[in-house]
C-alpha cells in the first residue's frame, strides 16, 4: 500500500539555519533517501520551493481566481514529501519517523486512496 508522507516545518527555520547545519541536514536527507531506495520503500519524493512561490487556484462559478501563497496560514508549512510503499500503517510510520524533518517539524502520513480508472 502507498502512503504519502508530508513534511511540515517552519519555513523561517530553514531560511535562518547556519550554512553548516543546513549542509548537515541535506546530508541526512540524502542518506535517508538512499536508504529507503535500497529497502524498497521509496516511490518518489521532492523538496518544495518556499511558500512565497506558491499560487492558490480556485474556480468559482466558472471563473478562475488565483491568489498568491498557500491556502491556509499555519505555523508550519509543507516543505516536501515522500511517496512510499509499505506493508501497513505501522511500517509507514516507521519510515516516516526516520525522515530527518521529523526531528524539527512534523510528518503527516496519509494512505493513498486507490482510484479505479473509468472503463
Amino acid at each position, binding site marked *: 500500500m502507498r502512503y504519502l508522507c508530508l513534511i511540515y516545518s517552519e519555513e523561517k527555520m530553514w531560511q535562518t539555519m547556519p550554512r553548516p547545519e543546513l549542509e548537515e541536514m541535506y546530508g541526512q536527507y540524502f542518506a535517508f533517501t538512499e536508504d529507503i531506495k535500497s529497502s524498497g520503500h521509496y516511490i518518489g519524493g521532492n523538496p518544495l520551493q518556499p511558500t512565497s512561490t506558491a499560487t492558490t487556484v480556485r474556480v468559482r462559478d466558472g471563473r478562475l481566481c488565483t491568489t498568491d501563497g498557500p491556502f491556509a496560514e499555519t505555523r508550519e508549512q509543507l516543505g516536501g514529501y515522500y511517496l512510499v510503499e509499505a506493508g501497513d500503517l*505501522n511500517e509507514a510510520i516507521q519510515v516516516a519517523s526516520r525522515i530527518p524533518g521529523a526531528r524539527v517539524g512534523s510528518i503527516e502520513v496519509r494512505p493513498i486512496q486507490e482510484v479505479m480508472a473509468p472503463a
Partner: protein
Amino acid sequence: MDAADPIRSTVEAVYRAESRRVLATLIRLLHDFDLAEEALHDAFAAALQRWPREGVPANPRAWLVSAGRFKAIDHLRRRARFAAAAPELALRHGAGVDDVAFDDGVADDRLRLIFTCCHPALPLDGQVALTLREVCGISTEEVARAFLVRPPTMAQRIVRAKAGIREARIPYAVPERPDLPERLAGVLHVVYLVFNEGYAASAGDALTRADLAEEAIRLARLLVELLPEPEVQGLLALMLLHDARRPARTSWTGELVLLEDQDRRLWDRERIGEGAALVESALRSRRFGPYTLQAAIAALHAQAPDAASTDWSEIVGLYDVLLRAEPSPVVALNRAVAVAMRDGADAGLALVDALLAAGRLTDYHLAHAARADLLRRLGRLQEACAAYERALELAKLEPERRFLARRLKEAGER
C-alpha cells in the same frame, strides 16, 4: 427440548468466557472486523444447533473459531457469486487450518486486538469506543449510555474507527519492541480514560458509573496477564486503590465525602491489599512510571488509619518524583495540598497561589476549591467565600456543585 436446556446454559457460559477470544482470533483470520463479528454470531448459533446432538466439543473455543471461519467463507462464497470477489476469497481462504493454533497464538490475538483498537492513528474517542465494543464486548447502546451520547452517534464513531483501520491499513499486530513503550502508554491511556469516566463522570448526576470503572479494571487485569510490564501493574494498582474507596466517596444521600471525612471501614480491604502488592512489585522493577507513582501515593492514603496519621512527607516525596516524570500543573496542585498537610495551610496556600498566578489552572475548579479550603482553614473566610464562588462557577458535576455550595454557605455563616 429439555435436553437442550443445559446445553443452552453451557453455550451461554462459553459465550461469556470465550466470545472475545474467539472474536480476536477470527479478526486475525478474516482480516475484517464486521465479517468476524458476523462469523462469531453464526458460530454460536451453530453451537446451539449442533452441541445438543453431537455433545459439547473438548475444546469449545477451537470448535467455535473453525465454525466461525467456515461460516465466513460460506458467506464470502455467496457474495462472490454476485461480485467478482475471487481474489479476496483466495486470500482469506488461503490461510491453512494450522493458523488456528491455540494457546500461545490466542493470547496474542487478544493483545493484537487491544493494540489495533488503541492505534494512535484513530481519534481518541474512537479508540475508547472500539475498545469497549470489541475487547470488552459491551453493546453499542451501553457504550453510548455510559458516555452520555446518543446510540447513533456512538455507532458512527465505531463505524468510522473500523473504516480507519481498513483504509489506512492499520495492522492487526502487537507493536515491535522499539515502538512498544510508546504504544503501550497509548493503550494504558485509553484504559485510564475509561476508568476515569466511570470513577468521576465528567458531567451528569451520578458521581460514579461503577460499571465503566469495573470494565477498566477487567481490561487492566487482562493486560497484566498478557503483558506484565511494571506500568501495567501500576495502572491496575492505581485503579484498584481508587476504586476501593468508592463505597465511602458518596453518602447514602448521594453527597460527596472528602477523603479526610470518609468512613475508612467502608473501604474495600481486599482491593487495597491487591493494589498495594502490585505497587510493590512495580516499584521493585525500577522501570516504573507515572501510574506506579500515583498508585504508590494512593496506597499510602489507603493504608493510613486516618487523614492525620497519613505519611504526608512520603507523599510529598512521591509527588516530587512524579512532577519530574510528568511536569503538569495538576500534579503540582496535588503536591501543594500534600505540602499543606505536612507543613501547614500557609505553605500550601503560597504554592497554590503561585500556580494560579502562572495562569494554567485559572479555569480548573479544583484549584479554586483547594485554595478555598486552605483559606477556610486559615480563618480567612471572606477570601474563602470568593474562592468557593469561583470554583462553583467552574464545576460541572452535580454532587461537586452541591458540596461547594454547602461549604460556601458554611463559610459565609461563620
